[in-house]
């Protein structure tokens, strides 16, 4: 029985529920192992005048204290621009930026010693907010631009225009397992690094650079992460490099595990954005032109900020056709930790802008916002409105069907009428309802990253090991690939084992990101299976022909139910058990292992021209959300959600559903209560779960329907599936639009009321809009 399409449990679920699944902090210590702590910059900007480590060096249990001078290799790294030092040696650019590394016999000793380090800095003025960076023209990378048509002309001739400023705050990944790495020194300066990373190849290369050795002398492994969400795409290499530095100097294994607060304070997050927009539209709410200038708070170093901004520009249309568009994006350099990938990767910051604009257009025209959205949807096959502002045709989708089905299944019209009635009479509460959509481009926008490789080993007993460049962070990648491989050989799932991801087995890999983990690595694994099967089929054809006196016909060889068979032989006894078959094949010197490779076809983008097909396909969906807001306190409750997505043929409906729900709720967190607050020195105040509030189980809507829509038009990609990791996150924006809708009932005038609502819509933010009370200092509420 094929396993694809079945709701098999997560590969590691048994380990999760018994506590047997090990994470880096859980690995048994080797003899002599050291704990590593890092001491960071006390200020956001300045030059180091002196570093006093003497007291720390003498502290009990301390084995070594290291600074930039002790790095054998280069002190610079970075995924796009090599602009970030491992250890600051002169300039410091954010609070907590690593300066000193301490190695001690125990965690407690290392922590105590860390407190004894004195870093003297000549402070310089820090740039913290986007506004401050704009004023200082403090940029990361060049301005990016995409344009189509003549926006100015569209604006001048349009019956209606609106303009505004849209602000969204950053978001902490809040993976449960903090950044962690264990470095184990090998012979002759070689290094093995076990890292909680989405990006073993990058970690390998960064560690090699830091140590001044070749990549061939460094191995990076990752069994599983306790969550990643993008936060371990680039930034996991810093702790890995620091642990490796200690291991190199001491010759002892070295482990680093960030505490939660340290992790939140020093690692990058989703970028805060501020975008100035103008929109032109007709009486029906049809978009005629859109211009948006986006600025993101990139933090102190480039990290992935420019790439994140590209994806924002690619998603300012979301699911809607823009006849004329002029969009620009600039990442700002500030004195915060370098912001980085987080599920959605700039997409949410683009999608939220257009969804907010559509909500405002509806409000301005007195139209239903769902009607306005429907009028603007990309229409499959209609050349007048199926091309994005960057020139890619949006094809083979079911966006219109999704909206219609949701409208019905969520009782949208009836509930809208009830809400209007409720709002007219309730003294203390006001409700809102909104539908928003998503069309999310699948592929890395950096073309070369769209590749994957995998190793498949079939043993002579018929069991199989699979290893890919993809990493498991809970998303179920390994579970899905295991299913794909088991089906390919017609095996029960237990006979296939997923191995720890390691740069020894898969080389030059891309990060597990951009929702493309299964697409790339699953396809690569299948490619490896195909090579092995070709050899098996050739051999099996010989065997069946010889045993049964039949003409040799490889096309008749079948792999199913743990047997190899010839389709022409009805007798079950004629089948060969897979294990026996493999043993025989080996004795006949058939190669039962293979490495598979996959590169996504037909993608290209010309950044100069702003034209091309950056995406292999799009994952789409929509959600209808209802909220209730207390008119007096701004407290909001989330009453109901109906989510409908097209994710193609599901490889594992249990895993996929989990991705949709988990992503959606993370998006809800971003737009509601996840608020990063900094002090005026640039120190993060909301730096633990006590003050940074991710959604709780009681924040789930009591009515929560998650469904999937069929899309027979989607025929590409592994098993005709679609990537599912990121897209649902952006449906959380429906909650925010529902809040905006609710505020529109409160008679607050257009300038101070619902129109000024920012992300996140915390109780404080909602009450600010409701009462149009003086805006608290920007730095203190939204974060810079």
């Amino acid at each position, binding site marked *: 029985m094929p396993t694809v399409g079945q709701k098999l449990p997560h590969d*590691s679920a*048994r380990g*999760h529920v018994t506590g047997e699944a090990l994470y880096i902090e*859980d690995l048994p210590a080797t003899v002599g192992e050291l704990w590593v702590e890092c001491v960071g910059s006390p200020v956001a900007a300045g030059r180091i005048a002196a570093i006093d480590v003497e007291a720390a060096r003498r502290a009990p249990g301390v084995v070594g204290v290291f600074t930039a001078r002790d790095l054998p290799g280069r002190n610079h790294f970075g995924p796009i621009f090599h602009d970030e030092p491992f250890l600051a040696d002169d300039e410091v650019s954010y609070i907590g930026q690593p300066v000193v590394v301490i190695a001690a016999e125990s965690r407690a000793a290392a922590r105590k010693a860390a407190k004894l380090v004195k870093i003297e800095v000549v402070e310089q003025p820090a740039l913290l907010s986007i506004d401050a960076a704009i004023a200082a023209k403090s940029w990361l990378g060049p301005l990016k631009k995409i344009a189509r048509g003549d926006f100015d002309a569209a604006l001048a001739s349009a019956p209606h225009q609106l303009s505004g400023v849209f602000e969204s705050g950053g978001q902490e990944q*809040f993976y*449960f397992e903090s950044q962690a790495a264990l470095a184990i020194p090998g012979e002759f300066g070689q290094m093995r690094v076990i890292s909680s990373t989405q990006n073993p190849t990058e970690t390998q290369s960064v560690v090699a650079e830091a140590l001044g050795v070749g990549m061939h002398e460094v191995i990076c492994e990752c069994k599983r992460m306790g*969550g990643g969400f993008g936060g371990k795409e680039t930034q996991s290499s810093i702790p890995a490099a620091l642990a490796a530095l200690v291991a190199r100097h001491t010759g002892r294994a070295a482990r680093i595990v960030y505490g939660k607060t340290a992790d939140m304070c020093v690692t990058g997050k989703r970028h805060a954005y501020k975008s100035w927009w103008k929109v032109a539209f007709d009486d029906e709410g049809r978009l005629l032109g859109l211009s948006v200038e986006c600025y993101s708070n990139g933090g102190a170093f480039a990290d992935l900020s420019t790439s994140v901004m590209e994806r924002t520009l690619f998603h300012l249309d979301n699911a809607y056709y823009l006849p004329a568009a002029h969009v620009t994006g600039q990442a700002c350099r500030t004195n915060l930790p370098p912001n980085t990938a987080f599920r959605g990767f700039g997409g949410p910051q683009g999608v939220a802008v257009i969804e907010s604009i559509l909500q405002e257009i509806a409000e301005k025209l007195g139209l239903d916002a769902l009607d306005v959205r429907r009028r603007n949807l990309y229409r499959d096959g209609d050349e007048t409105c199926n091309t994005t502002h960057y020139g890619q045709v949006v094809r083979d989708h079911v966006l219109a069907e999704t909206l219609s089905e949701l409208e019905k299944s969520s009782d949208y019209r009836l509930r809208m009428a009830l809400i209007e009635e409720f709002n007219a009479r309730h003294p203390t509460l006001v409700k809102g309802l909104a539908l928003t959509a998503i069309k999310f481009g699948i592929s890395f926008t950096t073309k070369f990253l769209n590749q994957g490789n995998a190793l498949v080993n079939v043993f002579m007993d018929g069991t199989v090991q699979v290893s890919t460049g993809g990493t498991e962070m809970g998303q179920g990648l390994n579970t899905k690939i295991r299913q794909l491989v088991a089906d390919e050989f017609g095996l029960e799932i237990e006979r296939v084992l997923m191995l720890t991801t390691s740069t020894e087995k898969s080389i030059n890999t891309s990060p597990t990101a951009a929702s493309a983990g299964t697409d790339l690595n699953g396809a690569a694994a299948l490619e490896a299976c195909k090579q092995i099967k070709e050899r098996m089929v050739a051999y099996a054809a010989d065997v069946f022909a010889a045993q049964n006196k039949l003409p040799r016909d490889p096309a008749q060889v079948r792999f199913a139910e743990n047997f190899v068979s010839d389709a022409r032989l009805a007798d079950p006894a004629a089948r060969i058990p897979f294990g026996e078959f493999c043993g025989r094949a080996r004795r006949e010197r058939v190669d039962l292992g293979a490495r598979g490779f996959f590169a996504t076809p037909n993608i290209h983008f010309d950044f100069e021209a702003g034209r091309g097909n950056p995406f292999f396909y799009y994952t789409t969906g929509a959600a209808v959300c209802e909220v209730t807001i207390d008119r007096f306190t701004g407290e909001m409750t989330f009453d109901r959600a109906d989510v409908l997505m097209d994710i193609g043929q599901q490889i594992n409906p249990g895993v996929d559903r989990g991705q949709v*729900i988990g992503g959606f709720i993370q998006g809800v967190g971003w737009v509601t209560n996840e608020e990063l607050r900094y002090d005026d020195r640039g120190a993060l105040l909301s730096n633990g779960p006590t003050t940074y509030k991710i*959604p709780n189980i009681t924040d*789930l809507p009591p009515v929560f329907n998650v469904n999937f829509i069929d899309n027979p038009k989607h025929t590409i990609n592994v098993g005709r599936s679609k990537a599912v990791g990121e897209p649902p996150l952006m449906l959380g924006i429906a909650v925010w639009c529902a809040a905006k809708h609710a505020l529109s009932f409160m008679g607050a005038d257009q300038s101070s009321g619902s129109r000024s609502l920012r992300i996140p819509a915390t109780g404080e933010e909602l009450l600010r809009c409701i009462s149009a009370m003086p805006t608290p200092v920007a730095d203190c509420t939204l974060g810079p």
Partner: protein
Amino acid sequence: MRDHLVFYLNGCRQQVGDSRALLTLAEFLRQEQGLTGTKVVCAEGDCGACAVLMGRPEATSQEDGDLVYRAIDSCVALLFQLDGCHVVTVEGLACGGKLSPVQQAMVDCHGSQCGFCTPGFVTTLHGLVETQSHHEPLTSVGGGLSAEALRYALSGNLCRCTGYQQIIEAGESINLATTPRLAELYPDPKLKSELFATVKDDVALAPQNGASPWQVFAPSSLEAALEWRAKHPQAKIVSGATDVGVQRNHGKLELAEVLVLNRIGELTEISVTDGVLHLGAGATWTAVEEAVRELLPEYHAVLTRFGSPQIRNFGTIGGNFVNASPIADSLPLHFVLDAELELASMRGVRRVPITEFYRGYKQIDLAPDELLVGIRTPLPVENERVKLYKISKRRDMDISTVTAAIAVTLEGKTISRARIALGGVGPVVLRMPAVEEFLTDAELTADTMREAGKLARQAIKPLTDVRGSGDYRLQLVENLLAKSYFDLQEVSAGSAPLPR
């Protein structure tokens, strides 16, 4: 007098008399026992990843002789608090080599993704199953757990990956009838008899051979506690450690000389006499929550949002009062009901009105030899209405930004007496005498309350902090009083809050 702790861990006897007693339970499990299934994420009681089950003899259980198991956060529990307990971790839940029905449900329903939060959910779910045999059933039809009961019980467990829905589905699929309770998983009579036998011992721990000085005293009687307290006025008092443990993990507190109160049965008593509610300082929030369900439904509603179930299972009302946070959720009610605190020492017992107990930010009227032993609160009278508010960023497991209690006594539509207390707007919880005076003899109307809100706003100068700006707090206070007009129509001391 015993010089070591005795407790059981996953059915095995443990004896600790050395400085390991000063570790948190999570540290002990992970570092000393290699039980790494228990995860530590925040080390401040705010995520539930470290939740384990703690079984101990409780007042209600003494007759039938069963331990009562409850989930607690092991990252803030200290080993020295666990004398006489049976600790069960995620590793101790499998039944005869097979996954427990709870574990199996989590596997089958995709209740885990990255798995880091999962051990905490599994133990807490088992804790919920346990309560089914001891308290009124929270069950729905079909012998399973209802979504509502699950949300309530799991509100102290965060998960970043799953979005919770599949965890709720896992919970709903658990068959309560066939899920073994911990007493069945650990039937060894020796375990129970030995733990029950510990109840009467006083435990005194100190370094064996003059290593760095520390000492812990965990008496079983108030008398012994007071006596020791008089001799050790510097010692840190620990009840549930849900404040102390966090401070210790943040490096703000070194635990060297400790008086542990959580084994003193007489401190946990709760009673009502002559219209006065007496809450023993050692009563856990879970116990208080149960006790006030009918007596003070408004209070009960706030307490269901106090910390998390794990925090309420171990944290005490006395610790909350002495911790003296201006945003303590418990305080405003007791302020408007004119509660008195009972303070005991070898010199005797004295009673202090709550408004006089708090003298300034974290300044309280407690002598170095005294312990808080109880809180006496007159219950609302017939025509008195009480409305409580807890405003926090997130509904559950969040510290308040502003708290408020509004009590009015009504003669017809006229307010004959008004008492208002606000938290989070000053260094201590504040009564609002000017507003109270304004309201006295006024008619309860929307306008009156709106005006009262404006007055209250003028009486406070709240600070800006990570939980909210000063402006926000001002606006909240003004609006809460205005809003209370509507809520006071709905509530009385004996009715439920306005449905949402």
